[in-house]
């Protein structure tokens, strides 16, 4: 603190606001709740749900406090980034530090995740009310929330990675929640393994970064890994193929982000992940976890953009932009030809994540994250709406066997329409319009190529089209299903309405006249100025985008509402036009088959080779040794038979005894012993921590 004139954010704990010092409470609360739920016996549904929802609501309040704190600092012109770090591990002369950071990016994400999460938790109590593993579900859900919030506040790539893995684990557990369904178990495995591919690159990037800079902290008063000093070192160090170390590490980290966020070519797991319960699809595979990859890119943005001047960009951002654009277009194309209500939304998520990546790469953090936030709300809305439809139609997911639900499910229909218009980018009134338009505009000004821009425009056209198709199939036309559909209970519809409100209202934060979002994230001041619209090319762009939306909606209406199918066996309109192209799209452009034919087959060959080696080569050695021993053994046979005498009988008896004991253990007493051990440990820990804080030994 040499000069009192410069506002510095200090790591000195005493001078720091309470919320910054205790930011760790936000992720810890859901994690503790998860641990406590794990200790609850299975039938205790109410305490489990109360614990999970209560913990997340408290986290939400804390997140709002943190947000208000940053907002106040911002409006008073103070520093908007504060962090707390501590030494975690010392080995040799190197030290690994961990810590958390509170800045506009983290604050806004914290509020979004805790808010959407709370709504989805509440919705889940209705959706999962008949499931016998209700407590387990909330245990996983709370653990997920803890991990996700940990990702958001981490100021260390390592801490972020740890929480990232927790999130990946819970995603696996929740996709496979109905593990007795083989498809769910397979989907969980696929998700875990596919994201693992990305994570290995991420880990490599992390180790490389540590080797180069000696720290994994993002920000550390100038000594962090993505602050100018370290970036200069990284830029000066050349890796292979003309890349600087910064570019190479950025690409490795992006590979991790691509795995998590379902970017090409690692997107294959995300649509399959819809095997999980619908609230999980809404929370994890639409609103939050899949956005973690986007968030990661935003977090290490200084690293990604290191070396870019005005009018130029970096190698890593170029890759991000192209991958994002390809994903956006691919997802939208495939979504057109799907029949599963959740799969359509899943491909739409893949596509929208691509938009976010392009937004980050071409327009900067604020552009990408704005779409992330608005998307989180309207996609959660759409998924929960889909859940409500599935619930109302007795677990039916095929849109061909729905139709005309507008009458039976009016609230769901209204909310869903809002979500659909927001996702389509319907002009002016819906948040999706403003956030998507910002991305398309940024892509237009991208100095490298106009390719992504055109791909995004085509994607936008398709987005409006497939959403119109879905709404036409599900809510309009005539009922083609079996049985009778009904509206969902209030505990499910009220979260829908809340989300619908935000799907509309969030748009005001990012209009060109009042770009609050950009100003807040970038930390500069904000004025209301209609001149924002007068930026060259902006209004024509908006008109072009709006026209595309109207055209797509109109065509969709014409094809799927005006000439709606009468029976569930009728082929799709597009199928009649071109069965072959439709077939390609319906089979998701054969990505799974491609992986099956290449990577998996290569792997199977490798395994077969290893097995052959094992059997023929090593086995031969073992066989020759063993025959030598067998000869030896024959000499000792008389002795052996004496020794082994009775051994088999005894083994059988012991097995019988052990079986009886195991049956007894299964009656639940041994688990309750272990539960007592854990509860004893927790109580002792609580007592000691409380005593320590009361006597002032440690500050909690």
């Amino acid at each position, binding site marked *: 603190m040499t000069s009192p004139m410069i506002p510095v954010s200090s790591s000195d704990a005493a001078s720091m606001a309470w919320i910054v010092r205790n930011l760790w409470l936000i992720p810890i609360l859901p994690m503790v709740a998860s641990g406590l739920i794990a200790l609850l016996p299975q039938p205790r549904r109410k305490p489990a749900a109360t614990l999970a929802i209560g913990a997340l609501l408290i986290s939400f309040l804390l997140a709002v406090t943190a947000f208000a704190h940053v907002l106040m600092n911002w409006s008073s012109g103070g520093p908007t980034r504060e962090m707390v770090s*501590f030494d*975690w*591990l*010392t*080995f040799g002369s190197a030290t690994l530090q961990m810590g958390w950071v509170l800045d506009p990016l983290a604050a806004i994400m914290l509020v979004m995740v805790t808010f959407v999460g709370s709504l989805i938790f509440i919705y889940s109590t209705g959706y999962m009310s008949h499931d016998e593993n209700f407590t387990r579900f909330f245990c996983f859900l709370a653990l997920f929330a803890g991990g996700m919030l940990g990702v958001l506040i981490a100021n260390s790539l390592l801490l972020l990675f740890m929480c990232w893995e927790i999130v990946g684990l819970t995603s696996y557990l929740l996709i496979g929640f109905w593990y007795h369904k083989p498809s769910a178990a397979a989907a969980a495995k696929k998700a875990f393994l596919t994201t693992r591919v990305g994570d290995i690159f991420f880990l490599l990037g992390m180790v490389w970064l540590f080797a180069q800079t000696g720290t994994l902290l993002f920000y550390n008063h100038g000594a962090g890994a993505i602050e100018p000093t370290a970036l200069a070192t990284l830029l000066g160090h050349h890796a292979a193929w003309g890349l600087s170390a910064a570019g190479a590490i950025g690409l490795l980290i992006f590979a991790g982000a691509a795995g998590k966020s379902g970017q090409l070519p690692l997107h294959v797991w995300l649509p399959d992940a819809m095997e999980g319960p619908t609230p999980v699809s809404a929370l994890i595979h639409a609103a939050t976890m899949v956005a973690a990859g986007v968030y990661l890119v935003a977090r290490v943005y200084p690293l990604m953009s290191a070396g870019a001047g005005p009018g130029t960009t970096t190698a890593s951002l170029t890759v991000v932009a192209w991958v994002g654009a390809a994903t956006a277009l691919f997802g939208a194309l495939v979504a057109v030809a799907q029949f599963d209500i959740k799969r359509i939304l899943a491909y739409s998520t893949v596509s929208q994540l691509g938009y976010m990546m392009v937004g980050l790469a071409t327009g900067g953090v604020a552009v990408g994250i704005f779409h992330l936030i608005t998307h989180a709300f309207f996609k959660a809305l759409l998924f929960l709406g889909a859940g409500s439809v599935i619930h109302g139609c007795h677990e039916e997911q095929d849109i061909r066997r729905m139709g005309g639900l507008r009458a039976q499910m009016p609230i769901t229909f209204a909310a869903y329409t809002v979500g659909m218009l927001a996702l389509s980018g319907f002009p002016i009134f819906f948040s999706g319009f403003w956030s998507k338009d910002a991305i398309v505009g940024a892509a237009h000004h991208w100095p490298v190529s106009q390719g992504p821009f055109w791909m995004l425009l085509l994607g936008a056209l398709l987005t409006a089209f497939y959403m119109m198709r879905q709404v036409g199939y599900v809510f309009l036309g005539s009922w083609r299903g079996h049985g009778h559909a009904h509206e969902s209970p209030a505990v499910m519809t009220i979260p829908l309405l809340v989300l619908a409100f935000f799907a509309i209202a969030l748009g005001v934060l990012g209009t060109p006249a009042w770009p609050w979002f950009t100003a807040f994230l970038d930390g500069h001041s904000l004025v209301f100025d209609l001149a924002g619209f007068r930026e060259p090319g902006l209004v024509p762009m908006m008109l072009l985008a709006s026209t595309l939306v109207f055209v797509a909606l109109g065509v969709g209406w014409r094809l799927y509402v005006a000439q709606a199918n009468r029976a569930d066996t009728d082929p799709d309109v597009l199928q009649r036009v071109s069965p072959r192209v439709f077939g390609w799209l319906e089979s998701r452009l054969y990505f799974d088959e491609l992986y099956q034919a290449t990577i998996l087959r290569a792997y199977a060959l490798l395994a077969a080779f290893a097995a052959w080696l094992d059997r023929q080569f090593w086995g031969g050695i073992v066989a020759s040794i063993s025959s030598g021993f067998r000869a030896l053994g024959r000499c000792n046979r008389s002795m052996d038979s*004496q*020794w082994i005498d009775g051994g088999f009988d*005894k083994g059988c*008896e*012991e097995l019988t*005894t*052990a079986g*009886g*004991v195991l049956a*007894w*253990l299964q009656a639940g007493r*041994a688990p309750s*012993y*272990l539960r*007592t*051990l*854990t*509860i*004893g*440990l927790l*109580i*002792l*820990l609580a*007592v*000691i*921590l409380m*005593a*320590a804080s009361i*006597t002032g*030994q*440690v500050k*909690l």
Partner: protein
Amino acid sequence: MSTYGNLLAILWPESILEIASLAILVVDLGFMRRASSAARMSVASTLGSFGALTALLWLLMHAGSMTVMGGALVTNASVVAAQVGILILTALVLLLGVSARFTRNPGEYVALVLLATTGMLLVAASRDLLIIFVALELLSLSLYVLSAFSKHSAASSEAALKYYLFGGMSAAFMLFGFSYLYGITGTTRLTAIAASLASASLTPITLVALVLVAVGLGFKVAAVPFHIWAPDTYLGAPTPVAALIASGSKVASFAVLIAVTAALAPAWGWTETLLWMAGTSIVLGNLAALVQSSVRRILAYSAIAHAGYMLLGIAAHTLASDQAVLLYALTYALTTVGAFAVVAIVERDAGSDRLDAFAGLSARSPLLAATLMVFLLSLAGIPPLVGFWVKFQMFASVLRSPLAASWGIGMVILAIAGSAVSLYYYLQVLKRAWVAPAAVSSRLAIQPRELLLLLLIAITVILLGIFPGWLLQWIPMVG
């Protein structure tokens, strides 16, 4: 001498035990296959106790101070005292178990007992987190297997499984705590940890580490709330094994607990954790023992209470209190071995260890009833038996420690109240033995060797109570 030479020198007793256990396996499986089960058991047990006594002799002849592996393993007067005690206890357990008929594999049983003893010796001598963990695991794994050794008894398997599940989980927690300690201090040596904790400021993570370490050690000494395994294991395990768990294993665990306390006490929180465990153990152990009808379970709950008293002494953490704890652990273990032997004899006759099985013991075998009285009264802390003297010594050392200024007095009062309560359930057993009429009038079948050993233990308990100076001479101040 080279490092390895030193290592070998310090590990001679352990090596002797290992060699003895292998020799027993060879003799039993190689030459005694055709012999009767009883003969095999007596040969194996005799060889085993011979091995333990050889190791003991070596220890006594080579007593001295030594440190190897940079302080990971030490030997000094207090370590030797604990090791000598452990070896005596093992020999006693083996000799008293000669006529036990729970297994058809006596060689393996005795070999495992010796391996467990090896673990105990190592536990007592280790001063490094890793060695402590490995030694404790060697001890625990041997004891898990031994608990299950009565293969035809479902109770034995149940006891072993519970012991194993509980022990495995506590060991995992403790290892987790060790890893935190390593993370905080950057070392696994106890001395270096003490220095590092004394200079570092306290953080919540340190407290977490301390409590996690307390789980593992609390499990070994059966302190509340990590005690639940004890009643079931004491009840279900074969009697000699239960005696081993209650005696040698306890001595080793308390010895290492003293060493760990020296390392962790500089951090605020360790003493407090110990005190909480001590207080709850004293209260819960004594109260739960009141309602038991099985003598083994009474001994188990009283073991929990005794662990509470000893934890109190450990928490005081002065030279005098450490010495008192070691004395307490050794004499308590000796008395418990005796008590278990009496239970085994009664059980063999009546087929049950319930209180009623003890009815009229004084008429059926006056000498046995007399030794039982000596053991139980010593456990209750009645003068002039050694149990009184060590209890007095320990409470006095707690009151003289700095702890007396804060928690000490209250805890000592609690402990004395607990001992008073404990008299009730010990007397419940003695009432059956001396007052209640016998259901069966036949004389109890006791082998002369057993009676001789029991009398020897009882006389030791009495003599040490009258001449405590002998013990003090033998166990110098812990330094």
